């Protein structure tokens, strides 16, 4: 071939170079090679935040906001790695067997410990004992809403209508499913669950009048509520939610349904106390920044920046309570 070989090769090197550069970026901009474990005061290397969900979900966004703030406080890089799979159980399994040195940590969901075990086999259930909790982070509450055309404004209205309610949920083993199932059962409303794969399709089906009500996380529904396209029927927290002050809780309406999702920062079991203290300190300083507070507001998250003990107590109480209520009403979440 008359053409010299250099041109294509140079091109190729360029492509490969770009590929390599991007691949590195993909790993979260790992600049220093060490992943920790060195001598000296913690932290000396990058702290990896793994996320048991795909990029773009609430857990991912919270992790990224927190990681960014803590990176500034700790002076090291905090790459965020998405490891979706099995509702976060895959990531949890990896984390619990990681070295307990504070260089691999993760924001985890309460539902993985309180609700998922009700739907999977016991050996598959993730246990909180395998982790050290560093701090609580925030609550992400659920709202049950209906299309404005349905004419319902409360749980009682649905009962009065006497029809079979078809309700969308965000999937099996989610708080949305649990909260709706408990509400309908305890109110004695005839209802059929239609599980969707996440909040967006549940919202779409509700806006399109394919289902009568859907339970979603507040952040997913709030804009359509403000626009008047959706009418909120109930929230499932203990007290009313600041972001939706006019919406009555299920409890106020006479139904003992308290279901909430919250998130907390975890490390593998046996992480040294000083490391945990340093992480807690950095997290607290991040929580206090205006930037982070704004993030919470925009995502309709309620701060729950509590001690590890309080997180553990809440997890225990919720697990026991959910189990008891499900047994009481004879509900099986696994369809």
């Amino acid at each position, binding site marked *: 071939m008359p053409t010299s070989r250099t041109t*294509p090769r140079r091109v190729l090197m360029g492509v490969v170079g770009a590929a390599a550069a991007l691949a590195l970026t993909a790993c979260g901009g790992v600049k220093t090679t060490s992943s920790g474990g060195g001598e000296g005061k913690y932290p000396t290397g990058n702290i990896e935040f793994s996320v048991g969900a795909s990029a*773009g979900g609430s857990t991912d966004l919270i992790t990224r906001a927190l990681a960014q703030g803590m990176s500034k406080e700790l002076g090291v890089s905090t790459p965020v790695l998405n490891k979706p799979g099995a509702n976060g159980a895959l990531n949890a399994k990896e984390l619990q067997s990681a070295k307990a040195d504070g260089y691999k940590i993760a924001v985890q969901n309460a539902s993985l410990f309180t609700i998922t075990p009700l739907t999977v086999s016991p050996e598959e259930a993730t246990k909180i004992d395998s982790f050290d909790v560093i701090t609580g982070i925030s609550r992400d509450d659920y709202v049950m809403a209906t299309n404005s055309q349905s004419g319902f404004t409360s749980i009682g209205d649905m009962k009065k209508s006497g029809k079979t309610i078809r309700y969308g949920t965000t999937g099996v083993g989610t708080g949305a499913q649990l909260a709706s199932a408990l509400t309908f059962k305890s109110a004695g409303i005839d209802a059929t669950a239609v599980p969707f794969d996440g909040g967006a399709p549940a919202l779409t089906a509700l806006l399109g009048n394919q289902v009568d009500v859907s339970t979603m996380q507040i952040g997913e529904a709030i804009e359509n509520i403000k626009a008047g396209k959706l009418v909120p029927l109930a929230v499932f927290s203990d007290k009313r939610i600041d972001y939706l002050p006019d919406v009555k809780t299920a409890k106020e309406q006479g139904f003992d349904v308290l279901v909430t999702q919250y998130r907390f920062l975890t490390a593998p079991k046996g992480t040294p106390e000083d490391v945990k203290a340093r992480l807690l300190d950095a997290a607290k300083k991040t929580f206090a920044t205006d930037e982070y507070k704004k993030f919470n507001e925009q995502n309709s998250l309620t701060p729950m920046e509590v001690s590890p003990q309080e997180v553990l107590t809440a997890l225990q109480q919720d697990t026991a309570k959910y189990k008891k209520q499900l047994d009481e009403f004879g509900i099986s979440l696994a369809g």
Partner: protein
Amino acid sequence: MDISPILDGFGIVLEPSNLIYCLIGVIVGMLIGVLPGLGPGATIAILLPITYGIGPVSAIIMLAGIFYGAQYGGTITSVLLRLPGEASSVVTVFDGFALARKGKAGTALGIAAIGSFIGGTVSILGLTLLAPIVAGFALDFGPPEYAALGVLGVLLISSIGNGNKLKAIIAAAVGLLIATVGRDTFTGAERFTFGSLNLAEGIDFIPIAMGLFGLSEILYNLEERHNQVHAPAKVGNVWPSRKDLGQAKGAIGRGSLIGFLLGVLPGGGATLSSLAAYAFEKRRAKQPERFGKGAVEGVAAPETANNAAATSSFIPLLTLGIPANATMALIFGALLIQGIQPGPQLVTEHPDVFWGVINSMYIGNILLLIMSIPMVGVFVKILRVRPAILAPITVLITLLGAYTVRNQVYDIFLVIGFGLLGYLMKKLGFEPGPLVLAFVLGPMIENSSRQSLLIFGGDPTGFFTRPISGTVLALVLVVALWPLISKAVRRKPAPVPAGPPADPPVEPPVEEKTP
């Protein structure tokens, strides 16, 4: 319609800083599109922190640029290396790679770039003028409609291949079977996971596509080269001829329309649109046997459609607050960070964001077209690299790509497994296309049907009584029975004079009423 906010939008976009963010976005998008695996979603997630510091309009302009830029880039690997990075570019591989083998990679990439530009632009025009109207249309699509569309899609799969119909059906059936792996969305039951958490969420598209298309091709070529002297791939023309353009013209026009309409649907419109556009072209072609062997329309139609669909998938986000796919979910997140809630009120509360983003897409598409012209020449040269060097690098990119999706080594083994399967399939004369496409459509059919039956209270007649799903199912019948119908129609006129096969009369697929 008050057009002043639209014009203001152009003013915003034409600010130099926004133009630069748009340019950065489309360049980054194009580059990551070239890398299979690292999709626009992951890239946007990484760049999210950067957007804190810049204004909302600039941030979204850049992120949107990454998204549609990646659609352009994805074509390059599909055509040159047989690596479809996304479900919506699987169909492009059929004729794109065939063209590349004939030394017409430049034609394929050129046509794809032009088609993408036109498809994108038509779709933006649609977005500008019709967004609120078609948003309502998207909401009319509930589970029953998606189930019907999925069935139509699987039917189209059987018609896109050239080989043995039976083998295509077997491959599609295997694809549907693989799609059932994972934890059931409705009951949480484990299906074919063998107790492995890695399989609990099912198998991702990337390992399957990378293995069946990319790796299997390399394995197959290794064997070929032992048997025959390897001739370096010719790199003929670099730009489509006037004849090619003429051939592709119709396909681009129809692809734009199909892409725009299906892209509006939040549940998997882009894949369906490229599949439908391809099948449609093949059906109305005078010589359908050219498809799969390097037909220009076979590249033009799906590439136009998937770009049009990528653009119109902004409609549900910007007008309803519904993210249509993972990338849209991230753009949603980015808007939240900026203090803007995407939803019905976006256009009135933040017209600058709404129109700024939409209008930036006109500019972004022009930038992409301008960049594509010289890039086509550059990328095509990759084919001149000796296979001994190119093959291992391709394998590396493939495995790396599969790893980046979930950061799991497990997925690398999946690619290798599917690579071996693809190699065996090729040896036995099975096409990977039907398998991969059926795999993508499988969950859509299954989940939507089950949701529909729950909504109908167990009564399946609901599928036929709802206007849209009923119409789609009628279309399914027409497509399925088309060979019979066309035979019947053709028999009516006097016997066609035998002789050199003049153009047989081809009826455009009439959208008939229910038979």
